[in-house]
């Protein structure tokens, strides 16, 4: 039985043509891009071409607005820390409660160590930002606003372009963690007010351990990692050339597949969602029904715990994930769903299915076949199910 991978927000399969593009840069073209001789020159040219591929995917004005990093986490850290250093007379950060730990734990740490005052803006039930609270937090004390483009757990998309305009009014730098958005939704940074943007290779069928930070020309930047003059002295260290080439290829492919992502992949997701809602009573889709990544659905099943569902799915050859890290002694539910104030009965029962262009229609069939029985079996075992109010779900396509 073929294993079905529906956890593409965690990571994606490296596209075979990405691997093909990378391989020569381990062996044949092993030169250091900084070297003056021909070994270096050919590599330098290839790196530039890769940078332009990424520039196109982002719709950036210049290729040198892209700084390669080790991934989304480094890009996020570099952006925030740079802003605090670049604007020393401002010491506040505005971010949201639903960011990835790459932003959240850094901000908590900065707050704890007294290096910044952080505003964690809340969200509503669909995961959308509380705009009023956001406006209220902005001031000329804010060095940087960091708000994610799309949420990794629910797929909810923040209106970052507009949010960036608001930040500009107060002279703050605007950063967005677009790790989940890049490659899934069209992006054009040319005319936007976004100063910095993080992305990560392995979320768009590129290699792991490579990412980039876009820094708009003219935006102030202070390097996180100092060393040689690589990346125009904005990120020291010999370039990870094979990965950079791979990310370039992945960007090119992502652009080619953008329509498919918005079309075929979205249809797979919608079909799964609709079928599950029809067949399984008492479940909720978490996320913004109007503004959501095309590949992500987060479905919470009342009165069952997500790990139990995932174990059953895994045995049936289906890989999905739950937002909640059920690892602490007290079973902490996901910080995203908690911020959304998901009803108690569903808070621990959320399962995230995230698709990619690698998925096919049969994958949906398999899940739709397996899931109702799994949930039913677990609910029968649950002490709360017998007395629970049974609710059929809206079987109309929820996300028309």
């Amino acid at each position, binding site marked *: 039985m073929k294993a079905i991978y529906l956890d593409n927000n965690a990571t994606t399969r490296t596209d075979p043509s990405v691997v093909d593009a990378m391989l020569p840069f381990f062996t044949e073209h092993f030169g250091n891009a900084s070297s003056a001789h021909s070994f270096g020159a050919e590599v330098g040219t290839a790196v530039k071409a890769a940078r332009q591929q990424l520039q196109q995917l982002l719709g950036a004005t210049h290729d040198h607005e892209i700084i390669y990093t080790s991934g989304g986490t480094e890009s996020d850290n570099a952006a925030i820390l740079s802003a605090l250093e670049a604007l020393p007379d401002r010491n506040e950060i505005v971010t949201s409660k639903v960011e990835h730990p790459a932003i959240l734990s850094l901000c908590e740490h900065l707050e704890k160590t007294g290096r910044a005052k952080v505003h964690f803006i809340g969200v509503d039930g669909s995961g959308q930002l509380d705009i009023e609270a956001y406006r209220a937090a902005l001031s000329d004390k804010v060095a940087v606003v960091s708000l994610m483009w799309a949420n990794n757990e629910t797929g909810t998309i923040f209106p970052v372009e507009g949010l960036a305009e608001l930040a500009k009014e107060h002279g703050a730098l605007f950063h967005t963690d677009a790790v989940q958005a890049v490659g899934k939704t069209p992006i054009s940074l040319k005319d936007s007010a976004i100063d910095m943007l993080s992305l990560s290779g392995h979320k768009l069928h590129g290699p792991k351990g490579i990412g980039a930070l876009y820094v708009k020309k003219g935006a102030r930047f202070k390097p996180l990692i100092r060393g040689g003059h690589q990346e125009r002295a904005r990120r020291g260290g010999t370039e990870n050339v094979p990965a950079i080439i791979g990310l370039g290829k992945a960007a090119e492919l992502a652009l080619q597949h953008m329509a498919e992502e918005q079309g075929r992949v979205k249809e797979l997701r919608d079909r799964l969602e609709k079928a599950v809602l029809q067949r399984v009573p008492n479940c909720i889709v978490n996320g913004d029904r109007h503004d959501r990544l095309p590949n992500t659905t987060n479905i919470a099943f009342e009165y069952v715990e997500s790990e139990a569902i995932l*174990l059953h799915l895994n*045995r049936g050859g289906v890989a999905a994930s739950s937002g909640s890290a059920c*690892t602490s*002694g*007290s079973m902490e539910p996901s910080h995203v769903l908690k911020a959304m104030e998901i009803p108690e009965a569903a808070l621990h029962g959320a399962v995230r299915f995230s698709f990619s262009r690698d998925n096919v229609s049969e994958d949906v069939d398999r899940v739709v076949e397996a899931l109702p029985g799994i949930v039913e079996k677990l609910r029968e*075992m*649950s002490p*709360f199910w017998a007395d629970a109010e049974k609710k059929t779900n809206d079987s109309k396509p929820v996300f028309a």
Partner: protein
Amino acid sequence: MWEYSDKVQEHFFNPKNAGVLDGANAVGEVGALSCGDALKLMLHIDPVTEIVLEAKFQTYGCGSSIASSSALTELVIGKTLEQARAVTNRDIADFLGGLPPEKMHCAVMGHEALQAAIANFRGEVWRPEHEEAALVCKCHGVDARAIERAIRDNGLSTVEQVGAFTMAGTGCTTCYEQIEDILLRVATEAAAASAASAAPQVAEIARPETVAAAPAPAPVAPRPGSLNLFSAAVRAASTAPAPAKPIVRPAAESSPLSPASPLPPPSAGMTNLKKIRLIEETIEDLRVYLRKDGGDCELIDVDGSNVLVSLTGACVGCQMASVTVSGIQERLMAKLGVPIRVIPVGRNAH
């Protein structure tokens, strides 16, 4: 991702005795929706023989809580109430071929449901003795409460000391910063609580970095088994005026990292053999209590005034760990009348 034994998987995928037991005469319910897990244990007990004739469960929770519930029913069926009462969370975990440390609370839930059901049968109401606290050290299954208690009871001020007492932070070291935070919090609370005059001194201790950075010749981190911690404490004790506790918070200027000075010789007049026998007896007495909580303690070695014990069972995983260590230590010192340091050691390398 999942480190579940085959036995856990077996009891999760094909749980035994799941469902409602009609005619149950002992029901124990623990947990809640909001906690993410809950268990309702239903027993049919023969009123005359007090033998558990049937047992069924309903569980809401993760894989290991369902498996633990299934294991629990298998363990108690056919036992008398008294035998069933002795089933501990460790028994449940052992039956399942072990549980990952962060999942031990599932077995604890099983144990608690059993106590609740037995109380229900007797017409009593059962109350949990402890609430769960957030797990800090996953390697050794130590939660925030245990660490806080160890810090408070023993006046600890460094992560290394916390490690020596509770094992927390001595594995992968991922939890190092969290332990620092707890140290800071406890010290801050202590500072707030103590008189204003004492505040500056406590504040000094409050920062683990400060202590670590204090001019200490050859800062050797005290590991379980090294004498540094104890000797520093003893020195502090001998210079401080009449401390009530055998181990007091080291004065700020005497860094706990200072090199070891030789320990006072173990109580003169007592033969080694007699001493070891006394230690053995004391620990044997304590084991009765520990086993009740599903834990155990074994004497491994006596080395001067260091008593090496191995904590097993629930002691390792539960919040009792540090209490156990300091409890054993206090008992031994009371019995022997000499300073003793109890050092928990693993029997096997981790």
